[in-house]
């Protein structure tokens, strides 16, 4: 394959993974930004989204498109509900202390993972794509559904941005992020905001999981990769900076796609990890992080 088509394939692969990664990492960045919690179980919410989608889509004998629409609607809500319960039972009891919550979310990671293994089983389950077509380029074919995933993720990202910048709820969240004690003094129910943010962060990961399931299948161990990449994104973008997380997701996603296709996927992973290390050494607040913590 010559250079042009090779590059096209690399960019296609890169943008699809960048959009999905942006959605997942945004959830992590939001939770960290507002609550100052490093949620190690974030990847498991991604996995839960995918697994619940596979379960819901197979529950009724519906046409693939309707089954998937149902999953896209219900699965993130269920994931959000699970996150709310986790917040209530675990995080709130630890008073959202940064160190304690790291250990607690590691525990949550294993609880969620092993529960899915016990209740859902170890097999990878596939879900039919709601819209399945193949785009034939002169040199190779490409999945149409992947492009739809990228577009949907883009729409969701815009919706989150709009919600944070233009709605009252977003204002309350941003106020809590800036100074939670002051926010509380102004009558903002900080604990409720925390619960909401934690659920929202989990739902973003969950929705990314639903979108990816027709491409990658649902499997109980699938949460690790998005977790590591999301951490890389959040560190490079600047802890707590949403704009930074978005920029970093596209940098990592696209470079991963291009380096994987032209060189090797292992090299892409090495370079991403190296970038994280370099950012931590030379610009600990991240490339786009405003305030140093």
């Amino acid at each position, binding site marked *: 394959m010559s250079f042009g088509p090779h590059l096209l394939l690399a960019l296609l692969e890169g943008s699809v993974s960048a959009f999905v990664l942006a959605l997942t990492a945004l959830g992590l960045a939001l939770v960290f930004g507002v609550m100052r919690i490093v949620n190690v179980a974030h990847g498991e919410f991604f996995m839960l989204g995918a697994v619940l989608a596979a379960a819901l889509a197979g529950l009724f004998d519906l046409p693939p498109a309707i089954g998937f629409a149902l999953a896209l609607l219900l699965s993130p809500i269920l994931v959000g509900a699970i996150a709310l319960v986790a917040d209530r039972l675990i995080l709130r009891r630890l008073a959202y202390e940064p160190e304690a919550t790291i250990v607690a979310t590691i525990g949550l990671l294993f609880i969620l993972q092993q529960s899915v*293994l016990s209740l859902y089983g170890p*097999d990878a389950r596939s879900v039919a794509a709601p819209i399945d077509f193949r785009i034939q380029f002169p040199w190779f074919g490409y999945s149409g559904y992947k492009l739809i995933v990228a577009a949907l993720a883009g729409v969701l990202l815009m919706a989150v941005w709009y919600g944070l910048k233009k709605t009252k709820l977003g204002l309350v969240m941003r106020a809590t992020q800036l100074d939670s004690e002051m926010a509380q003094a102004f009558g903002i129910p900080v604990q409720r905001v925390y619960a909401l943010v934690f659920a929202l962060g989990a739902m973003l990961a969950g929705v990314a999981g639903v979108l990816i399931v027709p*491409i990658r299948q649902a499997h109980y161990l699938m949460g690790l990769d998005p977790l590591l990449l999301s951490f890389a994104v959040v560190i490079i973008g600047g802890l707590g900076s949403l704009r930074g997380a978005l920029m970093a997701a596209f940098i990592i996603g696209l470079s991963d796609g291009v380096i994987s296709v032209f060189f090797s996927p*292992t090299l892409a992973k090495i370079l991403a990890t190296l970038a994280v290390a370099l950012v931590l050494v030379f610009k600990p607040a991240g490339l786009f992080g405003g305030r140093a913590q």
Partner: protein
Amino acid sequence: MTNMKSPVKSEGRSKVSRRSALKGLGAVAGVAASSALMPGYMRYAQAQTSEPFRIGFQVHSTGIGASYGRWYDQTTKAAVKLINEAGGIAGRPVEIITEDDGTDPKRGGEVIEKFASQHKVDAVFGTLFSHVVIGSAPRAGELKMPYFVVSEGHHVASGGLNRYVFQPGITDVKSQVISLAPWISGNLGKKVTMIFPDFAFGHDHRDYFSAALAAQGGSISALIPIPPTESSFTKYFPQIPADTEVLYHVMVGPGVLTFVKELGEFFGSKRPQIFGFIDSLEAVDIASPGLEFLDGTYFWEAFPRYAGAKQTSFDKFYRSAVGVDDKGASLADPKDISTYSHMFGCWETLYVIKQAIETSGYQSPADKAKLIEAVESMTGFAEGNEHPQGEKTFVGKIHQAFGHQFISKVENGGLTVVHQTSIEDGLYEPEADYTTQSL
């Protein structure tokens, strides 16, 4: 992170004092010590002969091998039930002690140790994934624990492990690919691109299939190793040269459905011939959405998943004992697909252990040397209910069994056998001799 703001201040955190913690620990230790002296521990002291044989089952209940592990477990339970119903081994019952290794090589070694020191088993069996076998085998050798793997890898037959490790229930990869290469180059094409997982099992495929293909006058167009944790594959496909006649794929892990789907999207209808190893699709329904692309491609099978026209009475017996229908799915749930081409190895290995104990007169772990020598002196197994996959030749020097292999075509959402190899097709000169190692 200590200087991060924690806006909701903690209050009234429960304080566990050093004194109360120590008290609690002391109580736990006391209970543990006294329970060790309880009579249950000495149940069999006076009754040596009725004491069951204890066989350790090292199983992948969690981790990437969990789909296989579940079926290895089901097959093992079925075989042990039959053995015990028929009077056990040498008149003594068999007890299976199961330990999960998490499909993790490090944990594998620990599990062997636990079997030896804590459970005090007579033998260990059942490991599948090659990296776990390679991680566990040295410990089995050091502890002088007879260790029967059901793994397919060439590591046992290569001579790279030790005298305590056997693979009597399933053919190794080297033998499989040697027996398949003539059919592939004769029927599908001579220019082959290989896609394989980048660890021991995949390297066996790479090395031995490349050599076997060259011996048939074919050539390898490209070798594409895939890291074992990979979850998307389109980025590897540009490496497939345009002159490829046959795409040879062997993948293990949950990513396989993605692999096939993306392959279909990449190639469309203008695909090369495709030959795969069913390892990729064990526990996966051939009629899953996205697998339509495989229609008309070929697979290696060790034991045909779909009971075809040539089904033997032994296969019928084995299927009903394990609880698997004619399509290789669970009788309880037709969506639950078995790992049919591998799990028979557990069944057959247990019967080999039974035969070895009975012919050697093995009584207790003090007789381990007799047991090892008994297995080494075996030369083969006849087809039957104890060996439903078919007859096998066993080469004691390399501790490895050799059986028939099958090539099946994907059609109508199922698999149909198109070719069966002979045992001789897959025999090779032993590369080692374990029997010269000291016991």
